[in-house]
């Protein structure tokens, strides 16, 4: 009997390879390839008046220098808008190389291809671009003032304005016994994968074909984009995703200019070309996220129940909108979390600024929405003098109200309808885990020791596993090896482990026999990509369905060979046997031989199969009309809507009474992603998510000056928390199965990140008795807040003692 893998804490199968330095990333490939480097704009907003490349050509080892003028065909066109939306009235995208003007520091202007990266950068240093600088629009305030425009033809810098309303908010607010208005700010951060982007193109002149390796979250998307840009048949373009050192959203954007230019140059030069993004480039030419100003007006009754919620926010989308307005749409819809808002109106303006583009980063708009909602919950509790958990619980959607339709349109254009969840049960677990009811005593004890502590809470609901589809292909070789392919890519999540667990169980084979390939268009041509916490939901169900196809075929063939009914058979440990009569059996690998009428006895399985050769019917073809050779099968999983995971976090922080240093003493997570394929991996995802959340709450921000220069474009000044800054994360799980998919699972990838800023703000507020309206917060800022709030003018000047 094979041990069941699904639901077990199976160790990650990919780790031994990755942890011993045997990973294979884009930069590990392409020895001997030419290297590309880019001259990037030092100006946030400027017209290009001249580009002088003469000096650079003098340098030995320079193979090509390209400006926009050199681009041809569709490569010269603006980059595509990936996800258009009717509300996005003014979508704008850049070019692969800047044409006439630049709109943010870091925009690529000239591409150099040279013998190696050193020479390429030397050449870049010799290129002189003359600019006529234009006023830069930096920050939401400047953007919405509209005194200067990022794009001349976009009035008010407004890329999109979208409003959704459920119920009559004005009437409900007017009738509400209590109302509050909160003005909130949250700053930019970024995905910052340890491996930046990278592209390596191999051009095969004989075949007229291209093989592209990209550090992407969607190989099929890149393939289609590059084929279209380069005017190539899809059949002549292959995109392979080797190991990817993190993505967190930035690598779902495609095609990046470099993803088009590198293969284009490879074809033009007839040589392999590669480009590896360096950290500085990643800071100024990839993508950021999070920056919003928000205004929330809430109406509520004396018990703290929401009657109306009126939200307006201004979203900084950077210089271009290639990825559409997914981020603000998610903020607008997922803001509601586990609550019933009463009447709800949300309106946002997505604004251009002369800064790096804004595209989804783990959480993708949800951290901002959760922050707005949870700050509001705390404000209501403070206003009414009620317990903060109690206020939340009074507004929960109840389990018997599931599925619950919020009446809004979600990011996938489908209704925002929660499939399942038990919020009261989750909250009970969280209160238990963190010791909510004992906190008053804990605080009193801390106070006696001269310490200042606070408790914070935040709840969220996360739409995960959005469609349209993902596929699985499962093939049993005559050796018994099971090859599984799915098209979405992997960036370290553990797909090799969880997909193998699923297939091992569905097929009844040892997990050691299962080999998973992701993100390789040679193995699976139809796929969407890895984002929106969709890997396990989409590909997990797809490989399960594909396994079932293969299993059915295996049983059919085995039934014929053993002359029994397929219903009487079971598969375990790679052996098909008659239930209750284990002696009557056939190996799955033998069935793989039988599935193919071309049966050279090359291997032992084929030799063993001859005993089942049987008699054949001379009137029938060797492969029946409705059959195919081989023991393999494919299926696609396509859901009607997203599944909605949820979670609740609580933290205890300590703030230094003098220096305002902030320490997280405990961090507790209750997490519900439906049925867990592998709790160990779910917890790892949660831990990583919390780490990024802590970064966003206490450390990370993109510091632009007024001229649009990014002042902290390095790991020295952009403070990603080290392991030493990330608290131990205590987790507990609730499993409310999703009714929407065969495995009952929901996504888990982004969960850990979403509420952290809200939770930490809540905890600091609780410790300090100050209102927190802006995140992230540093010790120096907390100290400044204390100074502003100090009633004592001397202390206010000198700082509290």
């Amino acid at each position, binding site marked *: 009997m094979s041990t069941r893998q699904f639901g077990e804490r199976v160790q990650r199968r990919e780790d031994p390879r990755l942890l011993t330095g045997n990973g294979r990333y884009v930069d590990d490939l392409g020895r001997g390839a030419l290297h590309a480097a880019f001259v990037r704009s030092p100006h946030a907003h400027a017209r290009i008046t001249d580009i002088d490349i003469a000096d650079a050509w003098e340098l030995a080892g320079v193979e090509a220098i390209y400006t926009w003028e050199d681009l041809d065909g569709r490569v010269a066109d603006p980059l595509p808008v990936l996800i258009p939306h009717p509300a996005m009235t003014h979508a704008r995208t850049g070019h692969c190389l800047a044409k006439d003007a630049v709109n943010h520091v870091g925009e690529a202007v000239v591409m150099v291809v040279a013998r190696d990266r*050193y020479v390429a950068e030397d050449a870049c240093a010799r290129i002189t671009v003359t600019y006529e600088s234009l006023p830069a629009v930096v920050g939401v305030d400047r953007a919405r003032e509209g005194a200067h425009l990022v794009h001349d033809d976009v009035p008010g810098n407004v890329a999109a304005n979208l409003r959704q309303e459920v119920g009559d908010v004005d009437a409900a607010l007017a009738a509400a016994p209590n109302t509050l208005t909160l003005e909130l700010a949250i700053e930019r951060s970024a995905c910052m994968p340890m491996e930046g982007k990278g592209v390596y193109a191999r051009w095969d002149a004989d075949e007229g074909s291209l093989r592209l390796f990209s550090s992407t979250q969607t190989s099929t998307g890149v393939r289609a984009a590059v084929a279209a840009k380069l005017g190539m048949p899809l059949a002549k373009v292959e995109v392979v995703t080797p190991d990817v050192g993190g993505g967190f959203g930035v690598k779902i954007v495609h095609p990046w200019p470099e993803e088009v230019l590198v293969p284009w140059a490879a074809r033009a030069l007839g040589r392999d070309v590669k480009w590896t993004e360096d950290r500085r480039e990643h800071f100024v030419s990839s993508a950021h996220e999070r920056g919003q100003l928000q205004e929330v007006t809430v109406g509520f009754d004396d018990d703290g129940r929401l009657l109306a919620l009126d939200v307006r926010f201004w979203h900084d989308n950077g210089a271009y909108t290639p990825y559409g307005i997914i981020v603000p749409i998610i903020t607008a819809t997922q803001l509601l979390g586990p609550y019933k808002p009463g009447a709800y109106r949300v309106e946002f303006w997505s604004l251009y600024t002369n800064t790096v583009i804004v595209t989804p980063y783990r959480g993708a708009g949800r951290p901002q929405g959760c922050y707005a909602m949870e700050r509001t919950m705390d404000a209501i509790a403070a206003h009414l003098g009620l317990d903060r958990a109690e206020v939340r619980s009074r507004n929960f959607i109840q389990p018997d109200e599931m599925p619950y339709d919020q009446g809004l349109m979600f990011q996938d254009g489908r209704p925002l309808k929660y499939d399942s969840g038990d919020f009261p049960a989750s909250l009970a677990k969280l209160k238990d885990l963190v010791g909510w009811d004992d906190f008053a005593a804990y605080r009193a004890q801390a106070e006696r020791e001269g310490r200042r502590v606070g408790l914070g809470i935040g709840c969220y609901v996360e739409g995960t596993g959005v469609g349209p589809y993902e596929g699985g292909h499962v093939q049993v070789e005559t050796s018994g090896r099971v090859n599984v392919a799915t098209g979405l890519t992997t960036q370290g999540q553990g797909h090799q482990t969880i997909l193998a667990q699923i297939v091992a169980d569905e097929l009844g084979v040892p997990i050691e026999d299962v080999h998973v390939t992701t993100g390789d268009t040679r193995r699976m041509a139809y796929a969407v990509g890895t984002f929106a916490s969709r890997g396990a939901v989409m590909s997990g169900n797809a490989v399960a369905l594909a396994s079932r196809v293969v299993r059915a075929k295996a049983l059919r063939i085995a039934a014929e060979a053993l002359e029994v009914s397929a219903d009487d058979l079971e598969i375990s440990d790679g052996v098909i046997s008659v239930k209750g009569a284990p002696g009557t059996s056939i190996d799955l690998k033998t069935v793989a031989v039988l599935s193919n009428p071309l049966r050279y006895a090359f291997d032992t399985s084929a030799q063993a199969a001859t005993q089942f050769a049987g008699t054949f019917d001379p009137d029938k073809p060797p492969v029946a009309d409705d059959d195919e050779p081989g023991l393999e099968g494919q299926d696609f999983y396509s859901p009607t809507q997203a599944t909605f995971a949820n979670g609740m976090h609580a933290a205890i922080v300590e703030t230094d009474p003098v*220096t305002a240093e902030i320490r997280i003493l405990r961090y507790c997570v209750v997490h519900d992603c439906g049925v867990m394929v592998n709790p160990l991996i779910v917890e790892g995802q949660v831990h990583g998510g919390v780490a990024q959340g802590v970064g966003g709450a206490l450390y990370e921000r993109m510091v632009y000056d007024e001229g649009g220069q990014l002042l902290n474009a390095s790991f020295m000044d952009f403070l990603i928390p080290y392991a030493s800054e990330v608290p131990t994360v205590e987790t507990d799980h609730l499993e409310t199965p999703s009714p929407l998919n065969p495995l009952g699972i929901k996504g888990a990838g982004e969960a850990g990140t979403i509420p952290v800023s809200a939770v930490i703000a809540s905890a600091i507020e609780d410790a300090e008795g100050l209102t927190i309206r802006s995140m992230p917060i540093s010790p120096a800022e907390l100290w400044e807040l204390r100074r502003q709030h100090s009633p004592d003018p001397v202390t206010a000047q*000198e700082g509290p003692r």
Partner: protein
Amino acid sequence: MKPAPFVHHAPRTVDEAVSVLGEVGHDGKVLAGGQSLIPVLNMRLASPGHLVDINGVAGLGAVDITPEHVRVGALVRHAGLERHGGAAAALPLLRQAVRNVAHPAIRTRGTTVGSIAHADPAGEMPSVAVLTGATVEVVGPSGPREIPAADFFTGPLETTLAPDELVVAVRFGRLPAGTRTWFTESARRSGDYALAGVALVVTLDGDAVAAARASFVSVTPVPDVLDLTDLLAGRTVGDLPLDAVAEAVRAHVDPESDIHASADYRRMLAAELTRRALAACTTDHTEGAA
């Protein structure tokens, strides 16, 4: 992020190194652990034509302890100094401070002398150098010379070292019997350059303070010494005028605002850290513990 082309020199002796430095003049840079220089080169903030790599130079790797000094050679890595039991016993402040320099990986490569030559006001070891009355041993084209640490630092990243001179060692001064030391700092993340830091030396005579001095990290343009002896001399441990000390620190330091913290915050922090250091230093009975 690749450096501009440079010529790599690998001298085997101090004389050879100095002669190459003399030849290339302002176009040359000494390469020690590379933990400050290489990032600068990779970001092309500087592009010297010649690197004089001293990693193969004989005789620069020793820590020597004499009754007066702990002498640290130019190739002693931060990690080597941190682990050196003799140095820690002779002058506990060295280990107390050096373990605050960056992260283990960087300490394994970066040199203590290099960080003094680099003269970053956010560096820990320049501060320790001035506080212990260290002497910087230099060799130039005209032979060796010695520079008191107090005269060595002239501004942020600026020293009295000439481009053709090599620092071969720094001699940190040992402290009189009955002296306790303390080092503490506060950084945004563990191992980062500090927002503010303080090194403290307190000499006790029985229960009373005989002398006390402090120097700071990240809050003064060059490391210099604040003598607290006038404020503290004769006062008994447990009855120290901590507020007055904090006030003296606030008056002494001259921090700048940056994206991580305002000048006001850093001033407060330096004062508070000194107050805490003084309290800890005088009450903790393991000499020089931190």
